[in-house]
């Protein structure tokens, strides 16, 4: 009943809006055209391999529903500006879950459970639904997820020599870092990468209440422990530099995203993927963030085109879509049932992500996280690059985080 009421309200609003549009000459897209066909626009920032799979799957809705996948380079900022404007906003967007909190607070997102029965989401991995939820409401239909992976060049590091603990990794780095080659490299002073070490110590950047944890004892211990590894890596932590070091054979191992694998394989490298080393001091593996990629529905679209929106979501819920994405682009499906398929379980990258995901931490999706990337980045630079005192730097960063979060309010 509640849903129907919403639809009615939406329909009324839409009629009013359409009337207004006609009067003012604005060009808001009609819900359906003269032939009863609807267009659904989905913004995304994905590579062609992913969108091709989605386009192929969604083509089954033609001609009744025409789905347009539109790549936007500045998707998140544009949505902030036009998310409430049905003339300019898309109907849905495909993106990582970490911006859900911002848009939910802005009131531009529709809960997925307004469109689909909640029990149908039971088919998804728990941590993907956890990531897709903000303040107890599911705002994203998960499609696939990503974690960082421990990868190594088999020319230098045999499968038997892969470090299973961080102390083994440190000993390996000490032995192999010489002459311009590195035993291990990572973007050590980039928060997304350093978070794996911090999480593994029980620290965090931001808790689920939006409180920063940069000067927690666990976070400071992680920074101190991580520093000895940083000292055996190049000072530069920029994405291209670290990836090039690995790709060009100047580093034996790295922690990087799955997106690096096709590139290094193309270069002829026999790349191995292994579980994250266990941190000796805590007994927990390095625990990177997990990013869940999925579909968010804008409130305007849910109200104006509920049937078309539901049909699109139902296509994207099919196992075949998850399986095709795994095969096309190494995406780890969010639906449990996809892992019953051999084509998925045979994929080394996908299965490595599934294993890593067991200890991975869903990236916080609270609006406060927006300020934490910059503040944490400064803290990491102070500790890793400038050699500043950890406690003083962490206290300063924590205070700055609180100040910026307060400003957001």
């Amino acid at each position, binding site marked *: 009943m509640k849903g129907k009421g919403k639809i009615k309200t939406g329909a009324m609003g839409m009629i009013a809006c359409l009337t207004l549009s006609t009067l003012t000459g604005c060009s808001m897209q009609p819900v359906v055209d003269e032939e009863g066909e609807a267009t659904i626009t989905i913004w995304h920032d994905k590579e062609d391999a992913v969108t091709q799979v989605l386009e192929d799957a969604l083509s089954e809705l033609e001609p009744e529903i025409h789905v347009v996948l539109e790549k936007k380079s500045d998707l998140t900022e544009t949505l902030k500006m036009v998310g409430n404007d049905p003339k300019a906003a898309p109907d849905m967007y495909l993106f990582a879950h970490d911006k859900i909190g911002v848009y939910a607070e802005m009131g531009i997102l529709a809960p997925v459970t307004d469109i689909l029965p909640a029990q149908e989401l039971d088919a998804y991995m728990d941590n993907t639904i956890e990531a897709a939820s903000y303040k107890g409401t599911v705002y994203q239909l998960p499609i696939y997820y990503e974690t960082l992976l421990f990868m190594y060049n088999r*020319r230098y590091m045999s499968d038997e020599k892969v470090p299973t603990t961080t102390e083994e990794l440190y000993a390996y780095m000490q032995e192999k870092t010489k002459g*311009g080659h590195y035993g291990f490299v990572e973007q050590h002073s980039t928060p997304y990468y350093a978070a794996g070490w911090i999480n593994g110590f029980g620290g965090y950047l931001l808790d689920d209440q939006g409180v920063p944890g940069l000067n927690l004892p666990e976070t400071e211990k992680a920074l101190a422990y991580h520093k000895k590894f940083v000292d055996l890596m190049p*000072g530069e932590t920029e994405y291209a530099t670290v990836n090039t070091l690995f790709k060009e054979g100047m580093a034996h191992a790295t922690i990087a995203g799955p997106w690096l694998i096709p590139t290094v394989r193309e270069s002829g490298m026999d790349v191995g993927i292994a579980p994250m080393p266990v941190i000796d001091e805590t007994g927990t593996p390095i625990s990177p963030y997990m990013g869940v990629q999925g579909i968010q529905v804008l409130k305007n679209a849910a109200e104006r085109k509920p049937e078309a929106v539901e049909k699109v979501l139902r296509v994207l819920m099919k196992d075949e879509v998850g399986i095709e994405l795994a095969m096309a682009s190494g995406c780890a499906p969010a639906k449990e049932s996809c892992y019953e398929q051999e084509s998925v379980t045979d994929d080394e990258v996908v299965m490595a992500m599934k294993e890593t995901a067991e200890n991975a931490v869903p990236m916080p999706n609270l609006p406060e996280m927006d300020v934490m990337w910059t503040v944490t980045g400064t803290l990491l630079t102070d500790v890793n690059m400038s050699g500043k005192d950890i406690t003083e730097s962490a206290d300063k960063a924590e205070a700055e985080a609180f100040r910026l979060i307060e400003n957001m309010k």
Partner: protein
Amino acid sequence: MDKYLKKIGIFLTVLLMLTGLCSMAVMAAPDTDRNAFYVQIPSDWKNPCVWAWDSDGNNAFEAWPGEEMEADPENEGWYYIWLPSFANHVIVSANDGNVQTEEQILDTNAAWMTIKAADEVEVTYEKQTTGEAPAYTEKFTIHAKVDDGWKAPCLWAWSAPDGTNAFEAWPGKAMKKGEDGWYTAKAPVFVNSVIINGNEGSVQTEDISIDPAEIWITVEADGAYDFSYADPDKAAIPDITVHVATPSDWESPCLWAWSAPDGTNVFASWPGEALEEGENGWLQKTVPGWINSVIVNGNEGSVQTTDISVESGKDIWLVVNGAEDYSLSYEEPELTAETETPEADTDEGKATEAVKTDTTENTEQTEKKSSPAGPIAAVVIVVAAGAGIGIAAKKKKAGN
């Protein structure tokens, strides 16, 4: 503060190394399809090497004279090499490049070539040897600079801890001295330990644990050593910018650059990379500072300058008026209306007034120093024009 400076130092070193790496020509990947190519050589030809490429100018190897062939233990007098299957243009050379065949264009490089003399070559695609060629093993290069007291240095290499040796007997593989003073030898990629020795093995380093990647090892008289995975001679030179003004009818001008005499190319394939819009009317391209030779070309490589020798490590301003008419400067000259790129009309062949190079002398000088890059570039152009291979062969000989 010291630590911070150290980090900056490391950062700059890494940047230099990466810049060098990124700008080096990309050769055939290890998993490329390969064919065994066999050659039988005259009795007075020693240590045959193969230089190979395809009609698009993609080289199989980084530098002339290419890769040394291996004697086939099952077939006396025959040498073999595993070539990337795309490389069907070959030149076989021997005696440190002092003798060579003309360019041979093969249907496939799964071929048997009998060389009776430099200009008498027979190729067949019917098997001329017995058994199969030893399996392909990827190799990497080890460079060593040894004390003058160490004569005829050799490389001994093995895999630890299993102890598999790369070479049959001590003192191992004789290292070949290059014009840059470094001795060089190759070892299979299973190797992770080496010893450099000299004087028939009577002097040596201790065991050196290495990665199977191109490496430069410096050895002192007492056997003490240091090593780097980046060429110490090249890593020390910062990138340079080549500024160019070309004739207005040269469409999409590109730069081809290399280091002579070792022939290390900056770009993977001819005609190189497009020059970009720079300031003050110049086109420009940033390249590694170790290059000492360039060619500017246009119209997809169908027009080009001759080989132009330049000083390593210095920015260059090059006004090109025609294939053999250019002026080179190491300080920015003012572009005249006649030379300005791309609108300028350079038909009258006027060069910048700031610095004028004696083109004739420069051309002669560079012809003498010609590396494979020049001939290969020429070969591509000639092939494209369907005009045969004579120019390539002629230039190659000039280079020797």
